């Protein structure tokens, strides 16, 4: 509509200057009470030229409407993400290290969905959840591997994928010794990269004397 008379918005304020200030007169004392110049008649005229006043009101109205609607929808989406959960805690005590034999213990599989593994050097703990799509694998002692029933992923004793579609090794949980001599396991802290998972909080060194 007004494309021919479109003025760059930044230049508009400069254009307004001659109409509102008189360069010949001495500079008036600052009067904080006066309304800002942008609401002067010239400003509206500029707007009128650019959009037309009714157009401007309408467009701002729509802008506010979409702002409101978009914000409202987004906050409703946020509403669907709960802030408190009724879920069991992620850390638990798993008894004394000397109660474990060498090998994979299924003692806490039912309650805590974890396997506690003891080898010659010490302890680590698997989260019993397939890294493919979250099914619970089964431990086959005779074959020495964890097999997932959903899509056939196989993991070896170290949790590495030896078959099937799982993209990464089983997660290991943080495992440490509590003050009372029990193992304490935290499923919130997970690691599965070779190297990092065999040290620090993810491995508890324990040798039989």
């Amino acid at each position, binding site marked *: 509509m007004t494309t021919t008379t479109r003025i760059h918005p930044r230049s508009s304020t400069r254009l307004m200057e001659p109409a509102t200030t008189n360069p010949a007169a001495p500079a008036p004392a600052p009067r904080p009470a006066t309304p800002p110049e942008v609401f002067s008649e010239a400003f509206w005229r500029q707007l009128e030229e650019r959009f037309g006043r009714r157009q401007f009101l309408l467009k701002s109205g729509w802008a506010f409407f979409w702002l409101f609607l978009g914000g409202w929808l987004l906050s409703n989406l946020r509403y669907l993400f709960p802030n408190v959960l009724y879920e069991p805690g992620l850390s638990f005590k798993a008894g004394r290290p000397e109660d474990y034999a060498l090998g994979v213990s299924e003692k806490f599989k039912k309650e805590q969905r974890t396997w506690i593994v003891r080898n010659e050097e010490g302890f680590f703990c698997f989260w019993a959840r397939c890294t493919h799509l979250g099914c*619970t694998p089964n431990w086959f002692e005779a074959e020495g591997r964890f097999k997932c029933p959903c899509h056939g992923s196989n993991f070896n004793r170290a949790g590495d994928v030896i078959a099937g579609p799982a993209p990464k090794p089983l997660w290991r949980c943080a495992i440490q010794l509590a003050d009372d001599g029990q193992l304490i396991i935290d499923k919130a802290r997970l690691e599965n990269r070779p190297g990092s998972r065999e040290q620090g909080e993810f491995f508890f060194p324990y040798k039989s004397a």
Partner: protein
Amino acid sequence: MAEPQLPKPPLMTLVKKTKLWKSIFRHDFTDTPKTRIQRIFGNVFLHLHPVRVSKEAIRVSYTWGLGGLSFYLFLVLTVTGILLMFYYRPTSLLAYQDMKDLTFAVTLGGFLRNMHRWAAHLMVVVVILHMVRVFLTGAYKPPREYNWVVGVILLVMTLFLSYTGYLLPWDQLALWAVTVGAQMAANSPLLGNEGPFKLPFITTANDARFGLIGGTVINDATLIRFYVLHCVAVPFIFTFFLMVHFWRVRKDGFSKQTGEKVDVWPHLVSREFLAALLVTLILFVWSLVLQAPLEAQANLNVTPNPSKAPWYFLGLQELLVYFDPWIAGVVLPTIIVIGLMAMPYVDTNPKGVGYWAKMGWRKVGPVPIWYPVERPFAVNVFMLGTLMWFVLIFIGTYCRGPNWEWYWPGELWSHRRLTKMTLKNIPNLWGALLMGAYFALGTPLPQAIKARLSRLAGPKAPRLASLLMHAGLGMTMALAIFIPILTAPDAEYPVRSNSPTLFEALGRSTNAPVVSAMYRLVQEAGAGGYAMIGVMILATGALLGWLGVQLAKLKDRLFEQKGLIKYSLIIGLFLMMMGVIGKILLRLLFGVKYVFSLPAFNFNI
């Protein structure tokens, strides 16, 4: 009292004269041309129809009544669903008990549950068939493109309704299907905690999976969420799109407009009524004979073995075996849906509207094949995709047993079977070369270049150039498959693997038949074996090249017809579809897990 004795009018006539009757029924129901129209106009439900339609358009062998039946099944599901809601409490303590109550202690409870379940299955079948029918009769072509898009949305929502309903019985079947489905959300790119390129602020406690199931594990929060989605939210949105769908059917008209017209009342309405009766009968018998499955109560500690999704998701579950979850569970479904939606906009062929795709015989080499004459590319690709989906469903249903291992149909399942599937990655550079050569197959030879070539080097030059290009790409692909398998070291040796090379590792496994055959050849025939493998590579390259040449003519024609953008879209989708088959074959025949793998970014192909 000397009034003449009038004959007493029949009761109905009196009733029909009352104000009450007249306020409800605005016209009489004798069968006249006028009332036939009034019946359609004067009834809000029948008003979905036009008054008169082409006689051909309502032939059973044309529509099979599939659209109407989809809607009828939706109504059946709504009614049975509402009835079931009276006895169902969506909490993990009570949901399973309520299922038992329905079966054992509620009059017709088990029957209604069966009916709800089987009607849902039937609805998925009917919706898919409806879609195939619309495709094969060209009914998605202008001006009905947008209504096809709405139809695709309705298909997706039908599947989502099935998925959310699946959790409600709170048995093992439900829990594990939903576990797998929800985990796919966790693998979505950017927004999933285990997906590729996840955003820095994403954790298990705010990713896409968390939003879907309302927590980090499936529990009461998930159950109530799925309950609301299944019973209220999705049906609400579904109805909304259904209205748009119907409105558009009315406004855009039926695809078949020609020929003699007949009154919708009674010709179409009676057919619809008969079809609904038939489906009701089928559902009743089905629900009487077959019980809806209900397994043991949900238990997160024990996954049933094998753990299968409902049949219409088994194609997806089978796909998940061959690909990373984010590809199989997020990218491929998205591409399928977008591809389906884009179809009417890229298929600009005006032929084939209003009748079943015309088929004819054509010879490819010496072999006569039955072939769609008018819309060969569109029909072949669509039907191939549909067929592939059902082949995957077939494999998932009948060929997968405990630990998701391969069993032939009829073979006895065993939990004792020993397997050690060996799967290996191809080194990334070779994989990139393979994929690059594969997608380069999509390059057309535009007319302009052809013309220039024949000017420069004679009339045979364009054909020769095409031959060279395709043969070269085919050979590159063959080399990119075989060379790494034959020569690359096994990255997992010696920690997780006994064999220093990929060739030995795969050759000694039981699940890579082609590689183990080659390995045996080399073991037994030595250098002769290598020579035979060389021949095999050449043959594979030649085969792939030949396939490329077969496509060349089609590609060039498509490119000229559609222009660059539409052509890229079509050929990209097509190559991706065929690539899925290729990757499946690579897995099943060669034991290849990924052709390209960046574990640090969760990015594997």
